[in-house]
């Protein structure tokens, strides 16, 4: 069996593919749609200053539905998001650590509560673990350069080239080895959430199908077909996405799921990927496109928008967004024409945002995120 076999069979398979030709109008229409989405966050905004945020503060203090339940107890979150920029990591407590990596080669960043920094690299294709002082501790080959952090940042997981799952916990030198995610063929599956170091939610990339423990995987029987996007800090709610259907082919819908009652507690077909705030009371939503984030909104637990994160300027967009703390969103904002960048901290109270860094020139945001925010 040889290279020629592949060449011949792929060519023969491909030669049978035909479709109605795309017209120039088809392509131009799609291009205009992309432009509209790129500019969605700035539509109607004419302010020249780099400033963020439109807030609906009344919803923050009122609300109903899930808001009427007792709030989740505040977890011990010691600050939240670290920022990698210009070979330095600014930690949530304001300290800075030199880290010898180029943002162009970094896929994801995580910080364990023991201070170790975990980096999923694009080049080389590995996961690196750095000591709190920035010295490289270990480097691991991976099947996929995706890391999944636990909500409390006390564990991080990835898939090894042998398809077993590795979980590195706070205070533990080496990662634990969990069995592989049950998948057909050479596929290795995805780690959708880390509940704790011994309980992971896993799936096939489309739906979350099981819970993985050191003893193996068990089916998550009895719940709707969805993929877990995030887990609330104390684990009582899961943010999930549903498969696109005919009515919502472009984006599908998202929801909140209570794993105890097995009920969907909120659903929205205008919410995209979701991430819980550190106190579990709000979520930030947005859609990734072209290495940027559009339609960034803060939602309540009914998935109603309570704030919109809008960079000013017709050519500005959000590159990355994450929670700074329970009351503030951290956003890296870029002008995708001039490639200038700022890092901004936006309060949910409607006050003017704080520009933490910049403006400064940087790379093309379609290729590189100058500010990488921790998971």
């Amino acid at each position: 069996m040889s290279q020629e076999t592949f060449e011949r069979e792929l060519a023969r398979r491909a030669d049978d593919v035909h479709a109605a030709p795309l017209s120039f109008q088809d392509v131009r229409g799609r291009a205009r749609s992309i432009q509209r989405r790129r500019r969605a966050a700035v539509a109607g905004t004419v302010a020249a200053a780099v400033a963020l945020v439109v807030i609906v503060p009344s919803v923050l203090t009122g609300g109903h539905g899930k808001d009427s339940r007792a709030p989740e107890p505040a977890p011990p979150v010691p600050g939240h998001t670290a920022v990698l920029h210009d070979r330095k990591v600014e930690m949530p407590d304001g300290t800075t650590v030199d880290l010898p990596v180029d943002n162009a080669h970094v896929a994801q960043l995580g910080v364990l509560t023991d201070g170790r920094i975990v980096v999923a690299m694009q080049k080389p294709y590995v996961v690196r673990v750095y000591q709190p002082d920035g010295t490289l501790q270990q480097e691991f080959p991976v099947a996929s350069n995706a890391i999944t952090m636990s909500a409390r940042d006390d564990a991080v997981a990835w898939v090894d080239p042998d398809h077993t799952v590795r979980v590195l916990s706070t205070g533990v030198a080496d990662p634990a080895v969990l069995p592989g995610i049950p998948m057909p063929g050479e596929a290795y599956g995805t780690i959708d959430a880390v509940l704790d170091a011994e309980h992971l939610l896993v799936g096939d990339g489309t739906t979350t199908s099981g819970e993985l423990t050191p003893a193996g995987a068990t089916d998550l029987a009895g719940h709707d077909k969805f993929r877990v996007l995030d887990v609330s800090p104390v684990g009582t709610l899961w943010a999930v996405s549903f498969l696109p259907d005919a009515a919502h082919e472009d984006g599908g819908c998202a929801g909140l799921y209570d794993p105890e009652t097995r009920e969907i507690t909120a659903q929205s077909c205008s919410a995209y990927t979701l991430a819980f705030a550190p106190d579990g009371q709000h979520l930030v939503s947005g859609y990734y496109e072209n290495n940027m984030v559009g339609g960034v909104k803060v939602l309540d637990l009914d998935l109603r928008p309570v704030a919109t994160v809008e960079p000013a300027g017709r050519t500005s967009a959000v590159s990355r967004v994450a929670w700074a703390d329970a009351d503030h969103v951290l956003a890296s904002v870029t002008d995708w024409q001039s490639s200038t960048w700022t890092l901004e901290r936006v309060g949910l109270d409607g006050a003017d945002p704080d520009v933490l860094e910049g403006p400064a020139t940087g790379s093309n945001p379609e290729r590189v995120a100058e500010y990488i925010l921790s998971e």
Partner: protein
Amino acid sequence: MDRDTDFTAYLEARQARLLRTAYLLTGDQHQAEDLLQISLAKLYLAWDKVRDRGAVDAYVRRIMVNENNSLWRRAWRRRELTTDTVPEATPFHDQYDEGTGAAVWAVVQTLPRRARAVVVLRYYEQLSEAETAEALDISVGTVKSQTSRALATLRERIGEEAR
């Protein structure tokens, strides 16, 4: 030649071939058509930046691979279930078929996305290892290991079927 006329000429000349590449990358005709349209739309938006008309194919291939990976990473767009069965119609057999057509396709279908892209660019687009590495922004060593692994998997698969 104005911009739109220039782009239209490229579109008409190359889209059939690009659709086939998209199909091999996605394994699904509908996804391939969507991938091709969005990639060509992004090419159109960037048309003025692509000064070397001889490099347009490489440019759009890179958009397609990135976009395909991007679709994969966007949870709400994930529609494809990885499977070790052949999802398409009965494979075409002709006088040259050694009974391996279905096995090749099954192997390609079950490869991780990046490895599949390596196989498609190397063995369908006939790119060199260096060109494939450049297109995927990976090392030549990774291209070698991915292709070697795909070949090994195919040999194993054919061996199992023969037994």
